[in-house]
């Protein structure tokens, strides 16, 4: 995932660029800790991660990160309000059973949330379904319907609607075109819901509600 020269995945680069140096960050589903390690070494961020897989947790701790093994939905409940400046859910929301609850916890324990997910309304996916009639398999979502960990299909448009339904605010939004392991990509501004492979959102509490 991480290259030798320490450059992280393109989507993670965007997330990292949104984070203020020296802030306190929680990464839910942090995997092997690439993003946290980057934030710690490049932005002096005080970071914590939560990850389910023992091997990945170990990988993180071995490289000097503070990471807990556990289920993100349960682990978020223990933190006091406003513990973090940012809580990140990177490419994990599509695997969460109760995304609304998770988002609410996220905005309880953090001042800001950063959420990214593969955009299911990319034209390639639409075309695949239309043309073949099979559940789409892409480089971003490379699973059969029966072995996928991704139990939710989310589109960029859906997420905007979700923010209104659940009652949180989208503070920043970037759509990108990249493959899941790429360090390079580009930002999509024209017809993102159709042309972007990933959506990344900075969210906050809706002060009006």
């Amino acid at each position, binding site marked *: 995932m991480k290259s030798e020269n320490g450059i992280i995945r393109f989507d993670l680069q965007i997330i990292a660029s949104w984070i203020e140096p020296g802030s306190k960050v929680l990464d839910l589903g942090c995997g092997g800790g690439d993003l946290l390690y980057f934030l710690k070494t490049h932005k002096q961020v005080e970071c914590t991660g939560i990850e389910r897989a023992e091997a990945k947790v170990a990988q993180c*701790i071995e490289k000097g990160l503070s990471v807990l093994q556990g289920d993100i939905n349960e682990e978020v409940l223990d933190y006091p309000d406003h*513990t973090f400046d940012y809580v990140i859910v990177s490419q994990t929301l599509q695997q969460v059973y109760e995304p609304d609850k998770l988002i609410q916890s996220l905005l309880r324990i953090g001042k800001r949330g950063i959420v990214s997910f593969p955009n299911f309304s990319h034209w390639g996916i639409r075309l695949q379904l239309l043309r073949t009639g099979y559940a789409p398999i892409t480089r971003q979502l490379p699973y059969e319907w029966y072995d996928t960990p991704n139990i939710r299909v989310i589109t960029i448009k859906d997420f905007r609607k979700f923010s209104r339904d659940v009652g949180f605010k989208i503070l920043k939004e970037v759509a990108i075109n990249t493959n899941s392991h790429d360090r390079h990509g580009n930002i999509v501004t024209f017809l993102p819901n159709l042309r972007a492979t990933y959506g990344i959102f900075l969210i906050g509490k809706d002060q009006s509600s």
Partner: protein
Amino acid sequence: MSEYIEHDSDGISVGVVKKKFFTFAEPPHEMTLESGKKLGPVTIAYETYGELDADRKNAILILHALSGDSHAAGYYREDDPKPGWWDIMVGPGKGIDTNKYFVVCSNILGSCMGSTGPCSINPETEYPYGLDFPFVTIGDMVQAQKALMDHLGIKKILSVTGGSIGGMQVLEWCVRYPEMVASAIPLATTTKHSALAIAFNEVARQAIMADPNWNNGDYYSGPKPDLGLAVARMIGHITYLSDESMRRKFGRRLQDRSDFSFNFNADFQVESYLRYQGTKFVERFDANAFLYITKAADYYDLARQHNSGSTVKAFSKAGAKFLVVSFTSDWLYPTYQSKDMVQAMKKNGLDVSFCEIEAEWGHDAFLLPSERLTALMRGFLERVYNEI
């Protein structure tokens, strides 16, 4: 904890080491125990490996479990057949790297391995204390270790680590002397014994006390309660393993025979193993020390200890960075107990890492060679060393 003392497979070791002794609390300045009783003089056996930095910031304190001692690593003689009990983890280039850190392993108060305990001579009677030895707690053990660290001139400990009852001492250190502890690695441990753990300890104690040789703890001039202590050890051993590890290690295999003997000899391998462990144990351990230490472990309750009513409140006094590790097949201190302490640490905003290592060997897993555990400890220690 069991004994898994094997030579390092790569032959790496701290080399020949020496057991040292520190005596303090000479009358009239006796140590006041948690029970209110006074004890003195107090001797603590300890060993050190590696060198203390000029700025004294590289000290690691290792705390042992029930039957352990100060001999964590190395050999007492060139031809010593076995190394210390954690030689796989402690040594040059190992998880706890003695090239980098100054490692202290302290024997516990109440033990029979060189520190003051029930088999030590009572200066008033010039005869072993026996049951006149006052009850000591995990807190008292830690108080004595603190005196040792003061004696060694260590004001800030880079990391305190240990498993099982050693892990309880780790937690106690963090809450009792928070200003001294930069980080802590409690392994396969708990903030308080479950009813299950107390039950096994009680059966073990009853086995000792039912041995007529025990004689109310006064056996130092006659035959020792070896049978009782051996049975106590056998019970302990069952709790250190797991259903799966016993199935793999022994199954229903018979020992040196092809059919049942139809008598009460050790037919099964598991019987033979337990008897062997029991017999071996009585050669080196004191029955009264076993009673005192198991009771101290049963009494331990971090929340109660600090009059805080809850584990969450107790940890509000702590300031260390934590690495908590549990093992999947540990049924003596199951993972939920580690998760409870992790939860309490999180609620206090403490920096905590937690990993549940998949291991089939039960509670003993923390003592067995594990690349995972070694790598976790190495990575965590390196980080806290850089951050101190």
